[in-house]
Each structure stands twice: as C-alpha cells, then as structure tokens.
C-alpha cells in the first residue's frame, strides 16, 4: 500500500501527524497507530512504558507483537476481513483485552480503536489504558468485601449490618442459620419488616444511630421461627462516614437455662445444708412435744403410783378422773399429738436421706424398696403438688419386685422419680373422663432386671421423642421444665449403671420407658461395691 501513496498526501499526512503527535505525546493513555497492514507507525511514550519497547524498536513491526500469541496470530486475518467487509468488530468500540509486555508478561488493558483516514491513507489508532492497577484495586475491593463477610461469618453471634434507613446491608452465617434466611434474601430488606419480633428495639436502633452510642439489651425473649429463645442484643452505631449500625444478637438461652438450674441447684444445696441443721433444731421441739405428751399421759394414768397420792392431796378421786379423761378422749388426743410429732420427724428424716446423695455408692437393694421410696417421694414432691396431685394417679404394679440388684440407690430413685414426675406432668392435661394411670412392671432374666414405667398420658410425637434425652430439651414453659430430667436419667442408666433406657410412645398412645439394669451393677459397681 505504501507504494501508492503520493508525495503531496504523504506530506500532509505527516504535517498533520506532527501536530497530532505533539498532543499524543502528552496524552496519559498509550497511543499506537498502525497502517492498514498492521505495521506500527507511531508509539507514544506511555505505550513505550506500558509495553517496555522504545518506539524505534517497534515502528514498522507488526502490531501482533504486542498481543498474546493466540490473538496475535489471527490479527492479520482480522485486518484483512475488515478491509474487505468493512464490518467493524473492535473499531469504534472499546473492550478489555490483554497486552503483552516486551518481557513476555501479559497485562489487562482497555483498548479503543478508531480508524483514521488522512488523504486517502488509511490507518488505525489505538488508545490503550492500563487496567492492571484498577484490576488490582477491584480485586482488592472485592477481596475486602469477601474478607469482611468471612470475618462476620466466622463469628457465632448473629451480626446484622443496617444502614441509616434501616435496610439490611450485612448478614452473617449465624443470622442466616438462626433466621432461616440466606444472605441474598436478607440483604436489601427492611430490618423491622424482616425481624418484626425485634420491633421493640427498632427505636433503640434509631437512638443508637442518632446519639452515636451503643445500646445493650440483655436476655430479651425473642421468638424466631416459632422457637422462643433468650438473646443478648447489642447495637453498635457505625461512624458518621458510614451511618447505620451493626446489630449483634447472641443466643443465650442455654446460659439462661443454666443459670436457672444453677440457681435451683444452689437453692437445693443450701436447703440440704439448711435441712441438716434444721432437722436438729426441729427435732428438739418435737422432742419436747413427744416426751411431754408421754409425761402428761403417764401423770394422768393409774400407772404411776404417786399419782394417786397427789390426787388425794387435792381430794380428787383418781378413778373418777380416769373415767372423765376417757369420756373426753384425752388419751387419744395425747397419743395423736405424739404420733404427729413422730410423723413430722420422719418427714425430715426422709427428706434428708434423699437429699444427701453425695458420692455415688453402689449398694444392694430390693427393687420393691426402690420403687416404694420413689413413689413416696413423688407423692411428697412439692413441685408435683403444685401442678398435679400425684395421689389421684392410679398406680398399678406388676411382676415380682422382690429382686435384689446392686445399684446407686439414690441415683436410681432419682431416675424413677424423674419418670414419675414427667408422667404426672404429662397427664395433667388428661380430660376428666380418663383416669390417669401409671403402670410399673418389673421382670428379669439371668443378668438383667427390667423396669417399665408406662403412663396413659398424651404420648409424644416422633419429633419430640427423638430429642427427649438431649440436655435442656423441654417442651415445658421456661421455669417449669429444665429439660434435664431425662438427660440425667439417661446418664445414670447408661453411663453410671451400664444399662439401657428406651422409649415407646406415639401421640395419643401414652408413654412407656423401659429401663434395663445389670443386676450386678455393671463394671463401675464391681470396682465400687463393698459388701461389708
């Protein structure tokens, strides 16, 4: 093509070119001109810097040396196609492509190509912007975003970022898990609409943002997806540049429950200590009552010889007096008073014996005794009396309970009591027509005894049944159930005694627990048991 250029045009071309090149030199982008056959005709200083060639090195060379090999190979054919068809592919529109540096390294550039035609001489001008830095910045930015997400995802707290309009901007994995809503769904939604149960705190959020002070709420009761839980809530306002706030929610249900239990246990412990001291203190006045009754009784009776003499001193006939006391039931009244003192002291004694389950000790006991005492406790259980009168439950006992086993007596009593208590609580809801009933069935084979406790209460759904041995699992209201009864029972039976505890239940069919215990108490017992 060069050979058809006439001199006049060529001069004009370059005259324009010189003026143009002044501009091009100063441009911040790389500028490369090629002729119609792809040879480089101009290469500005920015291009020199970008590609690592001096302009004298590349002038006259095919532009493909600045391209990656795969594109470079095809470039001549692209040019040819354009020259023939005039159909633009890259001309007049920019795109992101890769440039190749002199040292062979490849870097992203933004390339816009224009066609120039000066006095019939055609060429192309390419403007090149280095994208490396922008790319790196973009990457950094998106990495930073991902990193932030990774950080907030790594936390077990639920973290929710909101802007000044109350729109959710951040949402971590814990939030997603607890609220059952993934990031894409949550981000962009309104905080109060999404979390209506937190409506009460939306004012706090506004306050926190406006006053720029963090706000803390402890142990608020929230209901998430039908599940109620205790949460600690913190609202941290972001600095003024960002606006908005970060809301942190921590599920502290377990802690709250634990506290309740600890409070209860502590109460129990101090009650035990108290009870031991109290037993002594109470037994003294009981002693006064009881021995006092016996003294009075004897001094009114004929038993004591001196009574007669003393009566006579007052002109009283002791035989008549006897008749009078009989008619007035005095002796019965006295002996009933004495009995009452006796009973009171027995109650204390039993309470103490039950509460004093210090170190586990395996002893030989008769099953009948175990069951008797568990039933006895159930009848006197204070909590039970509050919610249910155990005495109204019909208790049926089957099988030969005259079996001796080696076990931690108080632990097994506790298991039985837990089961009885659960049954009684479950049967509270029974209609008037149904008589609440608990069947206790005992059986044995050569090495095992089996105790079944079955109630005719409401039974359980399989969802509940699956979870009852879990620590803290309860369907009862906070404060009324700890969710520990069965997990403790499970521990005592399976771990401590190496037995099994199984559940047979379905809704409306009552609930049956089957406990199997090794008669010899299992290996713990064998190392522990002392027949002496």
């Amino acid at each position, binding site marked *: 093509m060069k050979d058809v250029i006439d001199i006049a045009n060529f001069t004009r071309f370059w005259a324009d070119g010189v003026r143009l090149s002044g501009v091009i030199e100063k441009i911040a982008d790389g500028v490369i001109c090629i002729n119609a056959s792809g040879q480089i005709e101009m290469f500005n200083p920015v291009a020199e810097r970008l590609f690592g060639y001096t302009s004298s090195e590349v002038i006259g060379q095919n532009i493909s040396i600045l391209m990656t090999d795969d594109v470079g190979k095809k470039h001549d054919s692209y040019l040819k196609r354009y020259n023939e068809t005039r159909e633009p592919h890259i001309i007049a529109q920019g795109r992101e492509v890769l440039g190749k540096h002199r040292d062979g390294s490849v870097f992203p550039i933004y390339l816009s190509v224009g066609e120039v035609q000066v006095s019939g001489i055609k060429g192309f001008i390419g403007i090149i912007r280095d994208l490396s830095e922008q790319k790196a910045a973009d990457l950094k930015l998106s990495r930073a975003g991902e990193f932030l997400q990774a950080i907030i995802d790594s936390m077990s707290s639920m973290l929710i970022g909101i802007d000044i309009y109350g729109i959710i901007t951040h949402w971590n994995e814990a939030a997603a898990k607890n609220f059952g809503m993934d990031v894409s769904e949550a981000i962009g939604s309104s905080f109060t609409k999404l979390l209506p149960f937190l409506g009460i705190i939306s004012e706090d959020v506004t306050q926190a943002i406006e006053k720029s002070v963090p706000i803390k709420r402890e142990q608020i009761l929230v209901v998430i997806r039908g599940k109620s839980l205790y949460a600690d809530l913190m609202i941290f306002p972001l600095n003024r540049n960002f606006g908005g706030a970060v809301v942190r929610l921590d599920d502290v249900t377990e802690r709250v429950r634990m506290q309740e239990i600890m409070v209860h246990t502590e109460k129990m412990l101090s009650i035990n200590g108290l009870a031991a001291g109290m037993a*002594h*203190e*109470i037994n*003294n006045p009981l*002693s006064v009552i*009881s021995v006092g009754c016996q*003294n009075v009784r004897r001094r009114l009776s004929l038993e004591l010889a*001196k009574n007669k003499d003393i009566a006579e001193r007052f002109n009283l006939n002791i035989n008549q007096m006897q008749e009078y006391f009989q008619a007035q039931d005095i002796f019965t009244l006295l002996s009933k008073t004495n009995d009452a*003192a006796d009973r009171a002291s027995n109650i204390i004694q039993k309470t103490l*014996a039950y509460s004093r389950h210090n170190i586990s000790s395996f002893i030989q006991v008769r099953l009948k005794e175990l069951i008797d005492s568990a039933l006895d406790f159930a009848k006197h259980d204070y909590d039970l009396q509050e919610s249910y009168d155990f005495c109204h439950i019909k208790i049926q006992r089957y099988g030969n309970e005259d079996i001796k086993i080696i076990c931690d007596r108080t632990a097994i009593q506790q298991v039985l009591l837990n089961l009885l208590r659960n049954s009684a609580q479950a049967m509270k809801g029974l209609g008037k027509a149904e008589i609440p009933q608990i069947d206790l069935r005992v059986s044995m084979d050569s090495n095992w005894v089996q105790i079944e406790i079955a109630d005719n209460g409401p039974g359980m759904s399989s969802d509940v049944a699956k979870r009852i041995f879990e620590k803290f699992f309860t369907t009862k209201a906070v404060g009324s159930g700890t969710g520990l009864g069965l997990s403790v029972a499970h521990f005592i039976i399976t771990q401590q005694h190496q037995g099994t505890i199984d559940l047979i239940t379905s809704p409306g069919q009552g609930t049956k627990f089957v406990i199997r215990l090794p008669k010899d108490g299992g290996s713990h017992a064998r190392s522990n048991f002392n027949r002496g």
Partner: protein
Amino acid sequence: MPEAILIVDDEQGVLDNLATYLEDEDLVVYTARSGEEAIRRIDAGLNVQICIVDLRLRGMSGIETIVKIRNLAPQTHFIIHTGSEDKSVATVLQRVGLDNLPVFRKPLTNMSALVSKLQAYYDHK
C-alpha cells in the same frame, strides 16, 4: 446409793421432759445445759452411772463431752440422744471410735425404749 443419771442437752424443754419422765421412773436425774457444765459438775464430784448426751451442743460438742467425762469417770455408761440424722451420726461416731454407743433419736416417741435400755445397765451390775 440410788442410780443416778446425767442428761446433757442445750434445750431446757428436752432436759425438763426427760428428767420428769425418768424421775417418775424413780431414777435420780441431774441435768446440764452444756458439755462444759457437765464436766464441771462431774469434776466437782457428781457421781453418775449413766450420761445421756446430745451431740449438737452449743460450745463443746457432745462427742468431746463424752471423751472428757470418760477420762474423768471411766466407768460411766453413755447414751447418745440426738436430733441429727442417723447416717451422719453413725459416720461421726465411727470416726472417733464411739460407734458401739447406743443412739436414741429425737424425738423419743416411745420413752419406754430408753427406760428399758437404762434398766439393762442396772440389771447388768
């Protein structure tokens, strides 16, 4: 000389009622409100064959009282009369080697049991 008994208890009502009952049995009964008082009196020459001692006393404990009286008057018989729970009492007595002593638990709803125990000591002599 009639058989004499010393009752040691920090509750006056308990002392009074036990004393009344035993006196009606024609026994000679002395009472002491504390271990210290009991020891003081025995040290001062009070002669008793049997001591009925409460374990939980203000001041010196019942066990200490028993050990000290035993030192002063080795022939004395002791009966423990306590409102504390059986098991813990047994453990404590065992620890100090007094677990062979008879224990009567408060309240003594059947005084004749105590009386026959006392009787057994006298008959033994």
